[in-house]
C-alpha cells in the first residue's frame, strides 16, 4: 500500500519516530548544545527554542519493560509513565540536560517528582497548568511562562529576548503550517501517504531541531505533490486519542485494509490546528495559545463539546467512514472522554470503535480483529448479503 519514494526522507522520519534517540539529536548534542525534555504537549516549546536549546518530547518507544519503575509506582499507574521512568532509570534518556513538566495528569505530576528524586537531571522545572480555560487562567499561566523563561536564563546563563521568542514562534508556526499542508493532502480521494507514515512524520518533529525538520518536511511534501496516490484501500478512518507516539498502532489498523486519513491526537491534528499569535507579546501569545486557542485535551474541564465538534468537523472534511478512539488503560482523563464521544458520534451517525491499547503495543491480534470487524461493519456491501 505504500507509495514509492525516491528519497530517503520518509525513511529518516520513520527511524526518528521509532527510537528515543536519533542522528540529528546526537549531532545537536555533539555540538555542545542543550536538550530539554518536555512532558506532554502543554509545554511552550518555543521558549526552549528561543534559548537556543532543543525541546524533546519525552518518549519511551521500544521500551522493554517497567521493572525499574516498580519501587515508585504501582499497578494502577499507567504504562506511559512507567515505561518512561524505567527508561530513565536505565539511563536511556540520559542525553537530556533538563526536564520541564506540567501537572498534566495524576500520573505525570508524580512522575515528575519521582524523576526529580531518582534521576539526576541537571535542570528541572515544573509549571502548574490551569484545569479550565478562561482569561484569568491564561493570565495565571503567562506568569508561569515568565518564571520558566527566567529560570532557563538563570540556569543556563542565556538571554531569551522578545526578538528571539518571536523568531522561535515563527519557526514553530512554520512547522505547524507545513504539517497542515501534509494533512491537506490526506483529504484527496487517493492520499499519497499512509496514516502510519503521517504519524511518524508528526512524532519525528518532537525529537529533532525544527529548522532541519522543516527542510526535510518541505522536501517530502514536494515528493508527495508529484507522487502517486494510494487507491487500494477500503475505508477512510480517523483516529482519536491522547499521547500516542508509536506509528505502529496505526500500521496495525491499516493492515486491515483501511487508510487512516485524519486524527485528533496529541501528536496529531490537535497540535497543529492553530498557530501561536505573532501580533502580541510573545509570552501572552503562548499562554493564550495553550489555555484558550488550541484544541484542548480532556484534561481541561468543559472542553468536551468543542472537542467533539472538532472531531466531527475533521471527520466531515476528510470524508471519514468511521472513527477509532483509543485510550491507555488506567487513564482517568480519557475514560469519560470515550463515553462522551460514543454518545456524541451516535447522535451524529458516525460509526465509532473504542479500543484500550497499551503504551507499548503488545497483543496486536486483538486490535486487528476489532479493527477488521469494525471495517466490515461499516463497509456497506463489501461481503454481499
Amino acid at each position, binding site marked *: 500500500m505504500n507509495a514509492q519514494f525516491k528519497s530517503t526522507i520518509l525513511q529518516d522520519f520513520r527511524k526518528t519516530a521509532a527510537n528515543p534517540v536519533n542522528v540529528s539529536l546526537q549531532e545537536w548534542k555533539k555540538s555542545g548544545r542543550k536538550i530539554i525534555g518536555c512532558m506532554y504537549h502543554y509545554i511552550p516549546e518555543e521558549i526552549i527554542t528561543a534559548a537556543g536549546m532543543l525541546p524533546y518530547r519525552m518518549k519511551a518507544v521500544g521500551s522493554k519493560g517497567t521493572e525499574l519503575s516498580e*519501587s*515508585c*509506582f*504501582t*499497578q*494502577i*499507574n*499507567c504504562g506511559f*509513565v512507567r515505561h518512561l521512568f524505567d527508561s530513565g532509570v536505565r539511563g536511556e534518556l540520559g542525553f537530556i540536560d533538563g526536564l520541564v513538566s506540567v*501537572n498534566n*495528569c*495524576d*500520573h505525570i*505530576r*508524580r*512522575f515528575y*517528582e*519521582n524523576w526529580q*528524586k*531518582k534521576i539526576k537531571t541537571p535542570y528541572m522545572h*515544573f509549571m*502548574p497548568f*490551569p*484545569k*479550565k480555560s*478562561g482569561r*484569568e*487562567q491564561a493570565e*495565571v499561566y503567562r506568569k508561569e511562562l515568565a518564571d520558566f523563561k527566567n529560570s532557563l536564563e538563570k540556569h543556563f546563563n542565556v538571554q531569551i529576548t522578545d526578538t528571539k521568542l518571536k523568531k522561535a514562534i515563527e519557526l514553530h508556526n512554520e512547522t505547524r503550517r507545513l504539517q497542515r499542508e501534509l494533512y491537506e493532502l490526506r483529504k484527496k480521494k487517493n492520499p499519497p501517504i499512509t496514516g502510519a507514515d503521517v504519524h511518524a512524520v508528526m512524532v519525528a518533529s518532537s525529537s529533532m531541531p525544527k529548522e532541519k525538520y522543516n527542510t526535510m518536511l518541505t522536501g517530502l511534501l514536494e515528493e508527495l505533490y508529484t507522487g502517486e496516490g494510494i487507491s487500494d484501500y477500503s475505508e477512510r478512518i480517523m483516529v482519536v486519542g491522547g499521547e500516542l507516539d508509536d506509528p505502529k498502532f496505526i500500521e496495525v489498523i491499516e493492515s486491515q485494509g483501511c487508510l487512516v486519513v485524519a486524527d485528533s491526537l496529541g501528536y496529531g491534528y490537535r497540535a497543529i490546528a492553530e498557530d501561536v499569535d505573532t501580533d502580541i507579546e510573545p509570552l501572552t501569545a503562548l499562554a493564550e495559545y495553550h489555555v484558550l486557542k488550541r484544541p484542548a485535551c*480532556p*484534561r481541561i*474541564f*468543559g472542553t*468536551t*463539546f468543542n472537542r467533539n465538534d472538532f472531531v466531527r468537523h475533521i471527520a466531515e472534511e476528510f470524508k471519514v467512514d468511521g472513527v477509532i478512539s483509543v*485510550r491507555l*488503560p*488506567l487513564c*482517568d*482523563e480519557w*475514560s*469519560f*472522554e*470515550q*463515553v*462522551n464521544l*460514543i*454518545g*456524541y458520534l451516535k447522535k451524529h451517525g458516525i460509526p465509532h470503535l473504542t479500543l*484500550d491499547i497499551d503504551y507499548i503495543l503488545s497483543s496486536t491480534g486483538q486490535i486487528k480483529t476489532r479493527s477488521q470487524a469494525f471495517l466490515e461493519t461499516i463497509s456497506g456491501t463489501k461481503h454481499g448479503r
Partner: protein
Amino acid sequence: MTTKPIRGLERYYEYRERWKAIISDMEKSPVPNPALLALFRLFLENDEKTIDCAENNKPFLSSWYGNAPEIYAAMGIHYICVVDNLLAHQSFTDDLAGIDANIVPDDMCGLIKLGAYAVEKGLVPTPTGMIAMLEPCDAQSVLHESWINNDAWKDVPYFALDPAYRSGKEDFEYFVGELRRMIAFLENLTGIKLDWNRLREVIEETNKQYEIWDEYNQLRRAVPCPGGSFQGSGIGWAISQHIMAGHPGATDLFRMLLADEESRYKANKGWLEKENSRVLWADLIGTVNAPIGEWLEKEHGTVVVQDFQGYTPYSHIDTSTEESMLLGLAKRNLAEVPMIRQARGNVDVFIEDVIRIVEDYKIDCVFFPGHVGHKDQSASVGFLREACRELGVPLLVLTMDIFDPRYLPMDKFTHIVNEFFETHKLGKFK
C-alpha cells in the same frame, strides 16, 4: 390529578424512609447512642431539604466539599453531593452491581463510577445549578464533565472552580478570585445576594466546630486512645462539609463526641480494654472502613487512631473583612479539607502529614490502602516507603477500592493484615 414523578426523588424517598425507620428503632432502644441518633437526624433533615427543593422548585446545587459550601449556607442555598447518599446507603442498594453494567472503564474509582451511574440512572434529582470541583484527582474533573454531557443534566448551568496547584499567598489569592466569580454566578443564578454578615456568622460557627474537632483530635494522641477507629473522621467530615455548613446541630454533635472521649480520657481509660497497636490509615475512609475498624479492634486490640479524613488541621478564619473571609475559605478549601490537602498539589504535604501523624499520635504502623482512584498517591508510594523507613514504622501497602468492598474482600484483607501483624509483632502478636 397525578403529576409526573420527579427524576431522582424516588431514591430520596427511600433514603428518607430508611433514616426514619432507623431513628425510630433507636429511639425505642433502652440505651440509644446519642451521637449516632443526632447524626441520623441531621442526615434526615438534609434529605428532607433536598426533597423539598426538588418538589417545590426551590434552588439547590450539586456541589462538593471543597467548593466553599460555607458560601451556599450564607446564601441559604441548599446543596447536595451526588455520591454522599449512594455511599451511605450502599449496603441497602444494588448500585455496585449497577456500576458493573455501566460502560465506564472498570479501572476507575468506585466513587466516580457511582457518581456517573447515579446521574445517568436518575438516582439524584436534577439540580438548579452545579459547582464543579476539579481537584484533587483527574477523575473528579472528568466526572463533572460526564454530567454536563448527560442528557438529563445538559441544561444545568455550571461554574467550575479552578484550583491553584501550590499553596502560596498568590495561589490563595487566585482562588479568592475564583470564589468571587462563583459568588457572582450564584447570585445571577438564584437572584439571592450574598449577605456578608450572614457569611461571617456561618464561618464563626464552622470555626467553633473545627476548634472542637481539633480538641477531639488532641485527645486521640493519648495512649490508650480514648476514641474508636474512624469515629471522628466519619461523623466529623459528614456533618461539617456534607450538609449545610455551619449547622448549629453539627456543633452540638461535635461537643457530644468530645465529651464522650473526654470522660474516658479523664478516667485514664482507652476505647479498648487493652490497646495493643495504633494504626494510621493513610487515605480517606470509604465504605470499606467500618468493618475493618471493628475487626481490628476485636481481633487485634488495635485502634485506627488517625486517617486523612479526620486529620485536617483547619485553621481559624479571620472574619474581620470580606477579603479575610474569602482568603480563609480559599486556604481551607484548597489546602485543608481532606484529600484535596494531600493530593491536590505536590507530594510533600502527603508525606509531611504521614510523618506528623506518626509522631504526634504514636503510631505503630501505617496502612496505605492504595485506593484505585488515587493514582497520584500510588505514584507516591516510593516517597511513603522511605518516610516510613526513616520513622521506623512498618508500612502495609494494599490495593483496594475504598468505595467498593468487593475489590479487596474482607477475608483477603484480614489474611493480609494477620500476616503483616505477625511479621511485625503487632496487634494480638505483640
